[in-house]
């Protein structure tokens, strides 16, 4: 089994089959990440397509010995930001989140009836800012370490911890809207 640096070398020498071998372990992860970031399946594919093109185009810039996974995910996250920015979705997302929060607040049973995990995860993630969402998805969704997440997002480990803490607080609040805590526990 070839390591990632060797595969990168082969791709740079013109072996396109090695490119698939290089990306194959992350194909599911990057798609899930993009899907959760954008909240839309089709947009996620668009983000990943753009990311794959960027990876191939800028592979010569990848530094040997560094984590390819972190480099790849940083491209995916940035592509997601780009797409969201391009489509001016930030504002739309916030408004969408507000409306969803209001609707769920008025009718939490509706969400309880909807057993689909997608609806639940969407509900939990909707209150997060793009950065918080990225940190949370990298750490808790993809299993990145704090250091790796900081490499992906180009920020300090402290910043990752701060965003992660905030993201988990918000998720917990959302989670309690779906599964309210028992009265006895609230009183305690």
């Amino acid at each position: 089994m070839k390591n990632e640096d060797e595969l990168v070398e082969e791709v740079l020498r013109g072996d396109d089959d090695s490119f698939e071998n290089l990306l194959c372990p992350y194909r599911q992860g990057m798609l899930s990440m993009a899907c959760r970031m954008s909240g839309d399946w089709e947009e996620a594919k668009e983000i990943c397509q753009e990311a794959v093109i960027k990876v191939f185009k800028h592979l010569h810039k990848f530094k040997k010995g560094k984590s390819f996974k972190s480099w790849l995910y940083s491209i995916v996250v940035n592509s997601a930001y780009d797409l969201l920015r391009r489509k001016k979705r930030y504002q739309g997302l916030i408004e969408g989140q507000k409306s969803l929060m209001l609707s769920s607040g008025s009718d939490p049973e509706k969400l309880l009836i909807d057993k689909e995990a997608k609806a639940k995860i969407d509900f939990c993630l909707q209150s997060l800012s793009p950065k918080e969402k990225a940190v949370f998805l990298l750490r808790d969704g993809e299993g990145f370490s704090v250091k790796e997440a900081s490499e992906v997002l180009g920020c300090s480990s402290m910043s990752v911890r701060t965003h992660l803490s905030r993201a988990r607080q918000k998720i917990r609040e959302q989670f309690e809207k779906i599964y309210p805590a028992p009265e006895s526990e609230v009183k305690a």
Partner: protein
Amino acid sequence: MNCKRTQRLLPLLVGSELPQSRISAVKAHLERCRKCRIEYDAYLLSLEKTKEWLEEVRQDWNEREWQEALRRATGKKEPKALSLAPWPFKKAWAYAMMAVFAFLLSLFLIRPSFIKQKMEPETGAIAGLKQEPEKMRKESQQDIISMTLVSHETGLRIVWFFNKNFELEVKE
């Protein structure tokens, strides 16, 4: 450690992102404080459930779409599917055969006129060259030359005949 400080650190404790020194201090507080323990359990549950849902909604690429994405990135062309149609019915073959047929037809239809056009000046020149001595021979063979004089006023015609030495000959 007080409740406020502990609760601020709980989101990181559930994901094991706290340094060891702080973990022991927070855990010591949790053993004493029931309220903070409930908070900790709530964080733990929400995180576990969210991770579970994230795994459930994890989706993979459709193989065809994945290959298409790679192809677009590497710039490879899509391999064409093999056609099972026999060769005379394939489009490429049909076009090639039509081209050959048109070429052969053009050989028969266009070639003769083309040759004629191209060869005409050559044959004319050759013919001219060939004709010239013959003409001269014919001329040399001519015995009598006639000259006709016509008067405009009276319409009188006088015909003179000369032999090959240009001597006037009288003819009836």
